[in-house]
């Protein structure tokens, strides 16, 4: 919440997973400010449209620069910010509808460029803000206002998608564990390249998955969310792929490309290597003299 506007009128529902995510973002940014002695204004927080995107208004304490734009385009805006200002720490946030349905086209290009930014996707398996329609991650068979006969589309497996697109850092977290989540976000921001932190952030109003994520060991119900075993080596792409292909949702750092070279370093390297010299406008004009 912007400090000067306590009347800002957006509220999340009680228990909404996004409360945990905003807390994690606050913690991670605070830690970064502390550690790098970098002002929080050096961070640009680019939000999508959805309950999740309202995170940009709901941060407590010191505020980064924020951008609350249009549905589905947070990553494309963030790309523009980072390409223009490699010195900024760029963080994009949004929901599963925002990032994986209408905005799905924007993941691949940023991954291929390895734009040095971090994306936090708040996956509640539903369209929250528009009142509970199915999203790409809604389970097959689920009944929602737009799937009255049960969802007839297979659920997207986002972690597999990120792997196939070559995202250079992939983590999977839980909104109910803000400290662990904060640590993941920190690591993602420190990663030199395109990083995604995919968060299970349940929607208490339209798709309450807290119980399913947690399971009920006593009654023999396996938890959906499973911590990644400590032996996992995120630098091992094959192991990472095997992890995301298993049933259930692995929680932890899934993949991190070793020696990742982000876009702006690639460009600098090429300009240096080719000794690219820029011409002034006057030089360009002179070359065209008759």
């Amino acid at each position, binding site marked *: 919440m912007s400090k000067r506007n306590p009347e800002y009128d957006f509220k999340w529902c009680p228990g909404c997973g996004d409360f945990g995510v905003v807390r994690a973002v606050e913690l991670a940014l605070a830690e970064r400010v502390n550690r790098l002695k970098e002002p929080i204004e050096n961070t640009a927080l680019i939000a999508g449209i959805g309950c999740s995107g309202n995170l940009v208004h709901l941060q407590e304490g010191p505020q980064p*620069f924020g*951008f609350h*734009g249009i549905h589905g385009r947070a990553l*494309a*805006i963030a790309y*523009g910010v980072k*390409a223009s200002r490699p010195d*900024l720490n760029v963080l994009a946030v949004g929901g599963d509808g925002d990032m994986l349905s209408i905005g799905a086209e924007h993941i*691949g290009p940023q991954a291929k460029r390895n734009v040095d930014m971090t994306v936090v996707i708040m996956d509640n398996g539903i369209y929250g803000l528009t009142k509970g329609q199915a999203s790409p991650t809604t389970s097959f068979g689920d009944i929602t206002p737009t799937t009255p006969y049960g969802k007839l589309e297979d659920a997207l497996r986002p972690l597999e998608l990120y792997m196939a697109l070559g995202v250079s850092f992939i983590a999977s977290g839980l909104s109910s564990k803000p400290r662990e989540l904060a640590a993941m976000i920190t690591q993602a921001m420190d990663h030199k390249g395109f990083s995604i932190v995919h968060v299970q952030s349940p929607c208490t109003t339209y798709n309450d998955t807290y119980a399913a994520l947690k399971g009920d060991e006593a009654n023999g119900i396996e938890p959906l969310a499973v911590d990644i075993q400590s032996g996992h080596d995120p630098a091992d792409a094959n192991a990472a792929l095997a992890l995301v292909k298993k049933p259930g949702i692995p929680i932890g750092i899934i993949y991190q490309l070793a020696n990742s070279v982000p876009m702006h370093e690639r460009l600098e390297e090429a300009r240096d290597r080719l000794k690219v010299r820029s011409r002034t406008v006057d030089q360009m004009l002179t070359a065209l*003299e008759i």
Partner: protein
Amino acid sequence: MGADLVVRFAGEGGQGQVTAAEGLAQAAARVGYHVQTFATYPSQIEGGPVWAQTRVSTNEILTQGDQLDVLVALNRQAYETHIPDLREGGVLIYNSRDFDEVPEGNVIGLDAEGLARETGNPRAANVIMIGAVAQLASMPQQLFVDWIESRFRRGRPNDQEVIDGNVKALDVGIDAAIRSGYGVEALDEPPVIAETRILVNGNSFLSMGAIAAGLDVFFGYPISPATTILVFMETALNQPGQFVGQASSEIESIAAIVGGGFAGRKAMTSTAGPGLSLMGEGLGLAWMAEIPLVVVDVQRGGPATGLPTKTEQSDLFKCLSPGHGDVRLPVIAPGSVAECFPAAIYAMNWAERYQGPVMLLTEMAIAERNEDVTKPDPTSFPIESRLVSEGADGNRRYAGRELTPFPIPGTVGASYVANASEHDEQGDTTHQPQVHIDQTERRFSKLKLLEVGSTYESENTSASIAMLPWGGSKGPARAAYNTLRAQGLDLGWYYTMFIHPMPPALLDELRSKDLVIVPELNYLGQLSSVLRSWGVNAHSINQYTGLPFKEGLLVTKTQEMIEAKSGRLVRA
């Protein structure tokens, strides 16, 4: 002796028409003539009907030329299509391979390909044609030898061989023309021009203008006829801190320049109609969040995929109102290649000055044609940059109904939320009625800032009927205007590249007219329609052929419209 030479090379794609037309232009420009080229071709890589035209003149050139002094027909179909445009007494040079009988009139049959092969350079057929044309117009051989030299001297081992082959081809053409005994009026001596001139096309000149205005970042997705701007930027904009990106789509382009503008950079994209149609939401975002940026729309034929390689002026409605809601974007439309450079500077300045998106509206016919223009001095243009927040009160970004300083990310104490939902002064979302009133009026009131310093041309302002062309129709309209005035018609002349906001004094003058005639290349009469909504009795002369206006047609249509003045002219 004459002031003008108009030559058209017509045939199938791949026969070198464009090179020939440009070669003629370059050679003529070099000795001081004014030149203008024009080319038109289908949307494909090889083949299809292609023609290219060059006008050489001792005077400033306003149109590509209605009538041809020389037609070079590289195949039969080209002959049939274009022979009506050859003026009486003009000379036809035709590819004799493709003809069974000799066409009528002053004709020179040349088996250009066969002759080229004989010179040892089978690709020099078009140089043979150039030679014939040069001779017909009594242009000195040396001119073209120089051109060949400059074109083929590339530092490769066989340069001299290639050059010699081409000079030989040139001479073959010259000989053929001499043997024919025909000729067209020889050109007068070229004018003496004090300023340094350059030969340039609209897209390159526009790109250089944008860079002169301080462009930092550019994102674009390929699309005819805008691609050449993206390609130009790729190698031109490469200082540290600058960035050029090929986007994955126009939706990404617009979003990325919004990001660039937000980040404090001067940002631009270029596209054509289909891409512009995809940018509606992003442009609304820039308007709402108050992000400076420039979108270049190089118009082609519409709607939808339309006519990708033809010219039209039918995107004006879309530029003014690209998205839903109350938005009316500033639009600047250059009227010639020469105006592309300053227009780009103005567009960049406007974006910075009012802190919002600006449309730079140009068109295929300007984008791709070459013209000789005075070499501008980039330092002579005032360059504007946005008012920047020092941080102290940065997060009152959207306070009040006037322009406020722009907070640049990284500035301590200046953080705010750039917001495309309705918002309060620090960018937090709110839907209070009074806030929507205030912020809406804030967004529109900033447009007033753009009324400062914008200019317009006017002539014979006492006439009650005036002509007001826009964009690339300026040249043909001016040519027609000159003719009509010479005929004694009492007609006023107005022109501005500032379509919206239009200079208020101009608008006042136009409102006082009985009739304002707007020649435009579209069906709907888009500018005249907008002008009527602004209280001007404007009516269009429309053309929608994919080609620019001809002077002659505009003369006739203007006369007709003035006669029909009392009739019903509104097209709903």
